[in-house]
């Protein structure tokens, strides 16, 4: 399998406060990977650095064989990266339907691309609320919309930053199942989530972050076998 994304030794800061201190990891094509760590260790910052939203000061990021750390964010996204951001960030002045359609595309040249129908089938509430404005949705509905919006671009790399936040257990389970199916179809996925236990069965590879550095990385099997790591860096 090829490496789809590689992050090498990046350092990132907000103004004068540095958050990432030489962080590296890789994701191979078709793999499901996670970033784990307590609140505020820099998980979201890592994602922002990859997407070019917060410029990295040192280090390199490669995606699909291209160096991207100096590219414009929209350009990176069009290479085939889509994110379900922390806090959902639905467009409040677009309807549910528009939120889904405005950015639709097939950036991974997928055989079986996501369409409005498939999204509706996955998240029935969205179909019922099709003409509601984004800000008229409940928290969980917004979360579904954020996931749907990312899927609609049919990305090569799907990134989920706490995508299960605010979802009911039922719906959360639905998402996990869906991610599982996607993985079977060869979708590359990067997940950040607090339900680590569930991630163990879902993901292939884990990177644990502590204070802007990689504290541990390994496969699900290895992590399951190392509960101390878990307890020390992730809690729960």
């Amino acid at each position, binding site marked *: 399998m090829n490496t789809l994304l590689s992050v090498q030794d990046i350092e990132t800061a907000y103004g004068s406060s540095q958050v990432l201190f030489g962080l590296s990891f890789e994701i191979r094509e078709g793999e499901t990977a996670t970033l784990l760590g307590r609140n505020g260790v820099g998980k979201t910052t890592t994602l922002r650095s990859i997407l070019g*939203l917060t410029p990295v000061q040192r280090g390199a990021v490669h995606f699909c064989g291209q160096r991207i750390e100096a590219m414009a964010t929209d*350009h990176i996204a069009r290479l085939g990266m889509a994110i379900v951001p922390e806090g959902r960030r639905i*467009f409040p002045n677009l309807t549910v339907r528009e*939120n889904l*359609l*405005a950015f639709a*595309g097939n950036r991974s040249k997928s055989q079986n691309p996501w369409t409005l129908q498939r999204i509706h089938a996955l998240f029935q509430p969205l179909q019922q609320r099709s003409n509601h404005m984004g800000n008229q949705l409940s928290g969980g509905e917004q979360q579904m919309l954020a996931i749907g919006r990312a899927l609609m671009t049919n990305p090569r790399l799907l990134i989920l930053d706490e995508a299960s936040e605010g979802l009911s257990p039922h719906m959360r389970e639905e998402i996990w199942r869906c991610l599982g199916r996607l993985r079977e179809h060869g979708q590359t996925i990067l997940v950040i989530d607090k339900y680590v236990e569930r991630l163990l069965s879902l993901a292939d590879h884990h990177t644990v972050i502590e204070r802007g550095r990689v504290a541990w990385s390994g496969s699900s099997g290895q992590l399951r076998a190392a509960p101390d790591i878990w307890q020390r860096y992730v809690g729960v």
Partner: protein
Amino acid sequence: MDLAFAIENLLNGLQFGLMLFLLAAGLTLVFGIMDVVNLAHGSLYMAGAYFAATFTSLCGSFWAGLLLSVAATAAVGVLLEMAVFRRLYQRSHLSQLLATFALILIFNELARMIWGAQALTLNTPPVFSRPVELLPGFSYSSFRLFIIGTGLAVAALMYLIVVKTRLGMLVRAGASDREMAITMGIDIARVFTLLFAFGAALCALAGTLLGAILEVQVGMGESILILAFVVIVIGGVGSIRGALVGALLVGMVDTLSRSLLPAALRAIMAPEAAAGVGPSLASILIYVLMAAVLFFKPRGLFPARG
């Protein structure tokens, strides 16, 4: 009051309203949808009128003048967007206010330096120079009818672009959360430049059409700009339907108050006093209308949802 007078007043109201709408149209895009408080909108309107007057007298044709003016103003718009506005999107409304105020000063002075302090000639094209007879003995300016038509057409076009097309969605998305729109892979900078140019082109259209019956002069933008803002706010910022309704409302109220109020006042007070009070009262009415609308609907008549 005879029928012709009534019809004329209605047409006048409609016409004045759509005239305001033409001006408000570009503003709806830039201010209502892109969410940039653009005081310099009036300057683009002025630029459009000056270009039209210049090109019309050079080419000898109003229509050629109009086309060239639209192109030239759109080009100015693009330049302006890339040089100034691009840096203002993420800024507060306050910065935008100050920056675009500065642009007004610059534009006015440039126009004065280039074209002189005196007004320029821009007249209605020959096709529309003659009034049309709507009723026996009652004729109405054909150019004003043309303005009515153009106003409605622009409204329809804008509605299609903003509400029905993907471009419209992207613009709205970019305006509400620029970073997220970029993260979704949209080159918002380009989209906004395009939209700004389109707004400038609408300004040129308004400047040319209105310049032909009003004036082409330095400072022509500011006096009417306030009315355009009033229109948009009454209608609900960001809503095209709102802008249209707001424009018609303001047009009607203003026209009717100007034509009916003096007569009404003369019935209850001395003509001398009525002559003094009438115009003041008529000028106040629009603002009373706006305050009343906002009192009952703090986000305008058709609040753009979001």
